[in-house]
């Protein structure tokens, strides 16, 4: 009894000590979890692998780096100087949690939050080229309108999945019976018996790659050819009907409908499909979900609506929970728990299986509120670390083929869309951009230069944006950068040049705007030399120099150098 008492006293004392700031006696404490149990659990699980692999994490990122990272990953652009300074100057102990909360929940960020996640999910669902081809059955604006609405209202993820899988209606905004969600499947159901719808639905919402099992049993994973066609059978009532521009053969849009399916044997009460085995024999399949749940075999929509059933079954599957947790983790860290993120299962073990499962469960228990998932991830210890490696953790490099241990932040290129939005905000060009639709159209046009569509049935495409010469040329000389470094009256640089700031403050301002940090001594020196060079006509003594123009020209040079740097284009 006496012993017990003394322990209680001691622990009460320890609690007091840690609560009292500035006390010298505080015990070494774990990473901050902001009082959020999910954050604490993430920290615990990530630390377990560090211990297991005898790795030491890097230091924390600077406040500026962390702030830039959170802005980029949550709302798709870097912070403005004002936003950055509001964060770095705050003395609040909860300022990190406050910033994340503000980006997620404050009305003034709702539009940017929705825009960012609309961009991310549009790429996932229909690719960067989806809907841009002539006579496409996909309407890109319709897809974006639907997603924007989901994210602006923070629609629960399971509802979004259900709507995308079961949608019927017209694909373009303004059309009668418009339902933007149909654009996910509109191009995937008519051709090749809907095999593309099958493969994409399994991959995107369940994290399962099944496309190879279309023709044969997969050599490595548990999927069998039979499973593929059983899953495929859910899509066989569905058609995308073309709608033409009156009097022409041009496609105006499409309508996704569910129709009675007679089956390939012509018996609609038990509408079966057939697939060919490697040895040439035909085999029948009926709709059966991946966990062997069977539904009615009828092909009549009023008896069994196969996609509605599928939507229900996907929502019940833990694979849906894990796949979204994995996708979001990868969004924030550059690497998910499996590689690729949409190929989960026993054949491809996860780097942190318990954490993956836990996060999936938590997403389900929190009503599929994706903002909660974002909050847990962004406030985790791993997300707070610098990208600078140490001797003790430089082996933790997924580029080396190692599974990620998250001992430091992995560098990754900004996405093209992030660069675009960042430049508009950094140069305040975002203030008069026209309607949302106009903005998105100009962005899509600009993006087209970096998209290569392969023209294959699976909508394959690649981007030439990531760290290539065309990207560098665009950053050197492209219109976007010319506009960002423009010096005409009323431009960002003109305002800066004509502000009351001293030259040194202007240099500071540009480094903060681009890199979320102040310039180093050497950088200040070289910036000053640029001021001198411009003021003296670049060494050309015969040239008359207007001092005001020279001041702006020097700022142009500095800003150009900042924007073209690795530190700018790489999320670090």
């Amino acid at each position, binding site marked *: 009894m006496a012993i017990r008492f003394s322990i209680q006293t001691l622990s009460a004392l320890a609690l007091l000590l840690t609560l009292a700031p500035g006390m010298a006696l505080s015990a070494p404490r774990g990473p901050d979890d902001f009082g959020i149990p999910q954050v604490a659990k993430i920290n615990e699980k990530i630390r377990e692998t560090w211990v297991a692999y005898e790795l030491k994490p890097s230091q924390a990122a600077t406040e500026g780096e962390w702030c830039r990272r959170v802005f980029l990953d949550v709302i798709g652009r870097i912070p403005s100087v004002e936003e950055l300074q509001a964060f770095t100057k705050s003395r609040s102990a909860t300022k990190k949690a406050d910033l994340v909360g503000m980006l997620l929940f404050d009305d003034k960020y709702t539009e940017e939050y929705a825009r960012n996640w609309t961009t991310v999910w549009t790429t996932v669902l229909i690719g960067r080229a989806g809907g841009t081809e002539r006579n496409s059955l996909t309407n890109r604006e319709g897809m974006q309108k639907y997603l924007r609405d989901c994210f602006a209202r923070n629609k629960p993820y399971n509802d979004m999945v259900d709507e995308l899988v079961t949608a019927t209606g017209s694909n373009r905004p303004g059309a009668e019976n418009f339902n933007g969600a149909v654009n996910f499947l509109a191009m995937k159901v008519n051709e090749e018996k809907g095999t593309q719808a099958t493969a994409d639905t399994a991959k995107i919402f369940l994290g399962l790659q099944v496309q190879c099992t279309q023709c044969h049993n997969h050599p490595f994973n548990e999927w069998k050819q039979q499973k593929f066609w059983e899953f495929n059978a859910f899509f066989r009532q569905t058609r995308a009907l073309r709608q033409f521009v009156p009097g022409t053969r041009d496609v105006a849009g499409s309508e996704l409908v569910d129709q009675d399916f007679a089956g390939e044997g012509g018996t609609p009460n038990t509408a079966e499909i057939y697939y060919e085995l490697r040895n040439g024999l035909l085999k029948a399949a009926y709709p059966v979900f991946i966990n062997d749940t069977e539904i009615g075999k009828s092909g009549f929509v009023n008896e069994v609506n196969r996609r509605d059933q599928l939507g229900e079954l996907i929502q019940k599957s833990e694979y849906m929970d894990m796949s979204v947790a994995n996708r979001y983790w990868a969004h924030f860290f550059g690497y998910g728990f499996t590689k690729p993120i949409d190929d989960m299962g026993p054949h491809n073990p996860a780097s942190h299986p318990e954490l993956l499962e836990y996060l999936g469960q938590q997403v389900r228990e929190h009503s599929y509120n994706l903002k909660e998932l974002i909050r847990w991830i962004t406030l985790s210890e791993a997300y707070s670390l610098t990208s600078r490696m140490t001797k003790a953790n430089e082996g933790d490099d997924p580029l080396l083929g190692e599974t990620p241990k998250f001992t430091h932040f992995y560098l*990754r*290129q900004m996405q093209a869309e992030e660069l675009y939005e960042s430049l508009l905000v950094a140069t305040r060009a975002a203030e008069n951009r026209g309607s949302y639709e106009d903005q998105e159209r100009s962005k899509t046009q600009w993006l087209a230069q970096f998209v290569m569509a392969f023209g294959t049935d699976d909508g394959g495409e690649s981007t030439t944006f990531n*760290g*290539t010469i065309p990207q560098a*040329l665009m950053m050197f*000389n492209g219109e976007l950068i010319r506009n960002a470094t423009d010096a005409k009256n009323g431009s960002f640089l003109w305002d800066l040049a004509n502000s009351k700031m001293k030259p040194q403050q202007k240099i500071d301002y540009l480094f903060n705007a681009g890199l979320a940090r102040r310039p180093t001594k050497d950088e200040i020196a070289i910036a000053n*030399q640029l001021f001198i060079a411009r003021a003296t006509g*670049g060494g050309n003594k015969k040239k008359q120099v207007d001092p005001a123009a020279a001041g702006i020209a020097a700022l142009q040079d500095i800003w150009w150098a900042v924007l073209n740097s690795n*530190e700018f284009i790489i999320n670090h």
Partner: protein
Amino acid sequence: MKSFATPQGMNRRHFMSHLAGASAMTIPALTMGHTLRTHAQELKRNKKSAIMLWMSGGPSTMDIWDLKPGTNTGGEFQPISTSGDVQISEHMPMMAKQMHNAAIIRSMSTREADHGRGRYYMHTGYVPNPNVEHPSYGAVISHETIDQRPELEIPPFVTVGGGSEGPGFLGMAWAPFAVNSNGQIRNLQMGLDERRLMQRMAALDLVEKGFVSQRRGQAASDHQNILKKTLALMTSEQMKAFRVTEEPQEVQERYGMDNFGKGCLMARRLVEAGVPFIEVDLGGWDMHNDIFNTLSNQRLPVLDRAMSALFEDLEQRGLIEDTAVMWMGEFSRTPRINGNTGRDHWARSWSVVAGGAGMNGGIAVGNTNSDGTRVETEPYTSQDVMASVCKSLGISLETTFTSRSGRPMKIANSGKVIKELFA
């Protein structure tokens, strides 16, 4: 003051010398310039190049290179005789006159019938693997030949009208330079005077190096590397190789005025400029329906004109002995004709074409059975094609790469040379 809008009169060497001299204005010395290659003359010159004609989507090789007339899988086309000892499709009449320059490997047998995986496998010789990204043809070949091309200022790996595949663990310095077939490179003009550009570059270099020095990983130094290459390219006179419209009208017309024709013509110009690897993309082969109409009226006329022009031109200019040409897609199409008069994905028995650079032309290597569903002779793979092309270019098959995890990997994934091509 000179303007970069008209780079004539100022070559890259001249420009780089200015860059090197930038330290004179008390700006820290530049490291952006090319490494000096003073020992250039001592290196053995290897002028060999490779051109890959990439048929995105998976072309039906049974309807082009390995016809089975009169069988239930054979489809609608008839074979015709050629200048070589092989027959090909009647819809390839111009190519028929060039077959003495090319061999058909009719015993390809692979396992990847998914576009993404097939694309990766045929470009790298490896199946996709979550733990390592393998370098593609263009990266491997330019990596192995670059030291023998000290004068090359433009990227050694160019892809025209398509994305090709990436450099994998070799790093972004070996990434494909993707261009359109019209030869206009976007954003090439800076519109700044030379001196001011140098000063900007000096400031940029400082920020760039600061970030690299902080041990943040490969991406930081890769970026620095790409900046160097970009600067070199912006000021290079070799960029004129991309301008296909400078060719005589009749030459352009012989290749075809479509994108693929222009791309093949550009490939020949790039070979002359010393570029070791060029890929030209022709898409639209994913013919799940209406295949015979699409082939005979759309794809094959385009392919026939440009591919035959390329062989003819390379031969006339005496370049064929130093230039390997490959034709392939990610896989082929089912012998069985489906209900929509189409063919689906098929990798088990199909053909690729290779010629030039000393490889035997006019022959068929291996064969398939009577309905094209099985390979009857020794099956060949992506690795074997790659090994053969490497051999034709004089690249040692003993070459071993070390992935960044330290795993040694033999060039072409230890593929075996297809001996009939060299007998």
